[in-house]
């Protein structure tokens, strides 16, 4: 008994190691769970980047599965992500909506002219007000909306090919199946 109790500190140490290992191997430990998942995309009004007199609202986002991508020209990760978005725009039928977040309109237009425009629609959020409504705390962030405008997925950080193929494309496929429409043959390439 006495000899066994000598092992107690070792056992405690092992327990700490195990908990530490589990804790640090959690994949998204720095990522906030979004409060919006499962909720309707909030009502908003934001000017269109290309024609600022036109005010866009939530009604412009519903009707088809939509990726809402928060981006900015000051965001280096957005540059890497941009190519992936271009590829998604070429190969998938999902609607892409950009939210130009706390940015300068001229810079944003220049960016899209230089690198191409993957978006069906780009909104301006110059003061970050729409970002606060969405619980955005950095760029890039991306939301997937079903055709009813409900948020079913959120990605914090860049959408790369791995995230697209493993996480977003399967969800899109499910949405399509649930809706009874044609399959997404293009998805995930």
């Amino acid at each position, binding site marked *: 008994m006495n000899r066994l109790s000598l092992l107690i500190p070792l056992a405690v140490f092992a327990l700490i190691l195990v908990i530490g290992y589990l804790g640090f191997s959690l994949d998204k430990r720095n990522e*906030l769970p979004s*409060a919006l998942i499962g909720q309707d995309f909030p009502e908003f009004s934001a000017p269109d980047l290309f024609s600022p007199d036109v005010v866009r609202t939530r009604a412009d986002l519903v009707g088809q599965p939509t990726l809402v991508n928060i981006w900015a020209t000051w965001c280096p990760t957005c540059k890497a992500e941009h190519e992936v978005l271009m590829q998604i725009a070429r190969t998938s039928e999902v609607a892409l909506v950009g939210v130009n977040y706390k940015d300068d309109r001229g810079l944003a237009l220049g960016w899209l002219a230089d690198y191409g425009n993957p978006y069906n629609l780009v909104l301006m959020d110059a003061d970050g007000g729409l970002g606060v409504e969405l619980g*955005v705390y950095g760029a890039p962030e991306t939301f997937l909306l079903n055709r009813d405008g409900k948020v079913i997925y959120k990605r914090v950080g860049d959408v790369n090919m791995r995230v697209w193929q493993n996480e977003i494309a399967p969800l899109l496929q499910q949405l399509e199946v649930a809706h009874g429409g044609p399959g997404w043959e293009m998805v995930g390439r």
Partner: protein
Amino acid sequence: MKFAAVVFFWCVAGTAWSAGQVDVYHFDTPEQRKRYNTLIEEFRCPKCLNINIAGSDAPIAKDLRATVHRLIVQRGFSDQEIRDFLQARYGDFVLYNPPFNARTYLVWVIPFLLLFVGLIVLIGLLLRQRRKASPVNLDVDALEKLLDEKT
């Protein structure tokens, strides 16, 4: 020497510049300012883990301070309405005081569990010590009786 003077100048200028990065907000009443200052101490910055939005330089913390100000001054929200507003958008995370639910129960329960285990260990140790320390109580009468019976 001249180089040192230049370095010194830029250091001083630099601190002056960074000290200038303080939000300037207008409040209708001193009470609003007090509520604002209390509330921004209360919320956690979503970007820079474990700093409140009052103490963070992150752009999002600045935005959230502006949001709190707007909700107080323009929308006339109560403190609780502001908490609900931010919680609805940024989740339980922004509250340093997470609610008790299925996801957070371990955080709340474990300290009490540890306290309970500690108490049991403490009681065990005390009991053991008392047992060792207490002298043997001889029931003298009973012993004498026993001896009488034997003889």
